[in-house]
């Protein structure tokens, strides 16, 4: 009978089959105060109504969430989901392409929708992630001798879909720039004989840094000349994919996502954005110091580095990384969270919890986990809160999601209830029942 109903309903796509209602829940919309005993109606993947006195449309598939809480799905603003499966195995990694300037590279079309990480991460309430073409560390992911500068275009994806096209939240997100840093030594784990990482003194390192900055400025100036030549239809104009990919950045349509960790790099990155008149977002910042006022004044948002991290310097306070989000908040800087990896993306809510423990108001942590991220990535009208008209990216939980003991009971991505089972739950069930 049920099967027949399903068949009938699926034959009528615009009717009740596409309507879902979650009722009796405590809804935390992030855009406003929590609503007790509320109902959320989802039509064709989008939220059509939310409130305490919302009527459930006839024929809607109803989920009762008595005693449960509903929050917007969380957004991890820095991962390598779909681009990296086993981080130590070269063949499973597609981040860190060779070459200094690669704005034309698109992370999105390299996202593997069948990655085992996807169901694992979403099972903890993360519905959207940003996958970066390059994520931290020294040098290219593998083999790259010198750290790239412009690494490509990050992908913003829903953690559900048959193809990367299904998953894409937005096509043009940003162009990532790994801001050069003054580094005088090779990473500690590097082979001593590796000629790619010669040890240099500070003066030399500073000279290298300035050289890299010059190359960067030149690339932007060349891109701007290309843009002018294109606009004025200069004779002999030839298409260049790299410069073509820079045009949205130069026009301010997409931001430059600048990864910079230390105060000096962040300061120079801000100066660079002033000089080149481009919109930037700082990612992975771990030490802001005197740049906070500037970030606020110039409306530069930040993807905060992992909260659960060691202090940068030996004599920094032990809780330096824990208090960073609170520091950003107090300075009035808009920020979102990133876990900067895949492995711990599912722990995104605990990064936020730690920030709350060390001074960030809980409601600000929620904004950073949802709407701030959505706005920074230019999709604030689509995701990030429980509001009419947005994608129904929702998690239904039995408590506060920032507490590890809380369980995600149901998850909706674009109104589709996704399977919470994954590689880990399957192995759990299999081996728990081993005779």
């Amino acid at each position, binding site marked *: 009978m049920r099967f027949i109903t399903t068949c009938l309903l699926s034959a009528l796509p615009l009717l009740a089959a596409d309507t879902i209602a979650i009722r009796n829940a405590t809804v935390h919309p992030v855009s406003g105060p929590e609503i007790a005993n509320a109902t959320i109606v989802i039509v064709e993947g989008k939220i059509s109504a939310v409130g305490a006195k919302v009527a459930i449309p006839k024929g809607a598939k109803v989920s009762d969430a008595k005693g449960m809480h509903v929050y917007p799905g969380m957004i991890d603003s820095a991962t390598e989901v779909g681009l990296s499966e086993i981080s130590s195995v070269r063949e499973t990694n597609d981040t860190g392409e060779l070459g200094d300037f690669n704005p034309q590279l698109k992370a999105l079309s390299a996202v593997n929708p069948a990655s085992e990480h996807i169901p694992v991460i979403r099972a903890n309430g993360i519905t959207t992630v940003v996958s970066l073409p390059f994520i931290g560390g020294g040098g290219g992911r593998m083999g790259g001798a010198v750290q790239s500068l412009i690494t490509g275009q990050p992908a913003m994806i829903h953690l559900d879909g048959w193809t990367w096209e299904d998953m894409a939240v937005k096509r043009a997100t940003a162009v990532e720039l790994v801001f050069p840093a003054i580094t005088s030594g090779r990473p500690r784990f590097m082979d001593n004989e590796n000629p790619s990482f010669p040890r240099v003194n500070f003066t030399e390192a500073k000279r290298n840094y300035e050289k890299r900055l010059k190359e960067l400025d030149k690339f932007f100036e060349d891109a701007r000349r290309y843009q002018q030549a294109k606009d004025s239809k200069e004779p002999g104009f030839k298409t260049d994919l790299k410069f073509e990919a820079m045009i949205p950045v130069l026009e301010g349509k997409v931001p430059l996502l600048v990864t910079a960790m230390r105060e000096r790099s962040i300061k120079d990155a801000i100066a660079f954005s002033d000089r080149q008149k481009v919109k930037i977002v700082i990612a992975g910042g771990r030490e802001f110091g005197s740049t906070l006022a500037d970030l606020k004044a110039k409306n530069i948002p930040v993807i905060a580095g992992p909260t659960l991290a060691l202090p940068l310097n030996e004599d920094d306070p032990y809780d330096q990384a824990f208090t960073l989000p609170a520091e950003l908040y107090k300075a009035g800087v808009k920020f979102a969270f990133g876990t900067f990896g895949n492995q711990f993306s599912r722990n995104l809510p605990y990064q936020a919890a*730690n920030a709350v423990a060390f001074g960030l108001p809980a409601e600000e942590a929620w904004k950073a986990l949802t709407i701030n991220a959505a706005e920074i990535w230019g999709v604030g009208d689509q995701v990030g809160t429980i509001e009419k008209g947005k994608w129904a990216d929702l998690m239904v939980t039995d408590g506060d999601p920032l507490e590890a003991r809380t369980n995600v009971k149901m998850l909706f991505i674009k109104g589709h209830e996704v399977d919470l089972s994954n590689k880990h739950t399957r192995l759990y069930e299999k081996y728990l029942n081993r005779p």
Partner: protein
Amino acid sequence: MRSTILLLIAAMAAFAAGPVTVIQNAQILTITKGTIKNGQILIRDGKIAEVGEKVNIPAGAKIIDAGGQFVMPGIIDCHSHIATEAVNEGTLSVSSMVGIEDVVNPEDIAIYRALAGGVTTANVLHGSANAIGGKCAVIKTRWGKDAQSMIFEGSTPGIKFALGENPKRAGATPVGQGGRGRYPATRMGVEDVIREAFTEAKTYQASWKEYNEKVQRGEKALAPRRDLKLEPLVEVLEGKRFVHAHCYRADEILMLLRVADDFGFKIRTLQHVLEGYKVAKEIKEHGAGASTFSDWWGYKVEAYDAIPYNAAIMTRKGVTVSLNSDDAELMRHLNQEAAKTLKYGGLTEDEALAMITINPAKQLAIDKYVGSIEVGKSADLVIFDKHPLSNYAKVQKVLIDGDTYFERDKDQSERTVKAAEKKTLLDKEKEQQQRQNAPRGGQGATGRRPS
């Protein structure tokens, strides 16, 4: 009569006792004896002397008012590499002649940071570069003390073994690409290295036995040449030294258990043991403890089947499980790692907290000293502002042997002083540099000669 004597002894003890501290108004998570909603702990001579809703507070006792906060035993990390000058002696496949105790660095800032996360005891291990690695040291995070004072008195010595990808890497990676051409390059070879070493150790053990017997019989005998590589392995065979074995996959875990069975020794703990859940039955039968991560996975092939339910499955199948860090950062929030087992596998609060207290204490055979809040144990205690299994909880105070080693309030209030001190030092250095850079020959010249 008997009670009178007891009373007398008690009174004498009170009279003769040294400093007394009382923690009051605390929710006490004893781990082994339940939870006291609002209780007191009396600490005398660094030991827990009384625990309960009310204790007998002697005059002059130092009072720590925990006002609505939570006290739990100091956290024990069964796998750490902090406080060391070196980790891996990786040039040989068997490096049992070296040991962490010789390279303890009491000035490693990671000690203080671990302390600020509630860790009071750590099993500091040699690295995993070789099948049989170096000797380990159990330390207390007595920040500010010297290297010798870090060592946990009465702890059983240990040794690190390692299986799988790490020990075979030096052989499997081509020379010139970071490899050393060092045997072994496969899991088969890892087993062989261990078997060869223990075969040698048995012969060595027998040669000493023969010598000692001859001496006892009053015969003339030449002592065997001492072998510092084999001595620790003989200690393993005799149960005097614990094996802490780094392992990942079910096959290699089972292999090691069988090798140990064949040579008649025990594996004390399987470290990481990410596929332990697949062979929990065999681990339990052997009697090994398991010390694992809460949720690490996917960073290498042998961690691709790692699941966050590992700790729960092994616990349910009767294995003593601890959660470790292997990492100076993770070490700072092991309480939050324990909280994950409530979600992944539905363990109880007591079971979760046991994994970072009494269970690692049992694994290291230091449970008669630490690991729970019980009379007679060392006063290694952590005070949290919220329940330690809450992700919002912060460590407020840490005591080791009854002495306060970390106080959040003090840490915060001293920051400005320390910043000022740093600035003074930097200014002084700058000044000195300027003086040195000043033109030579003038009044301000330092007389520095060109080198």
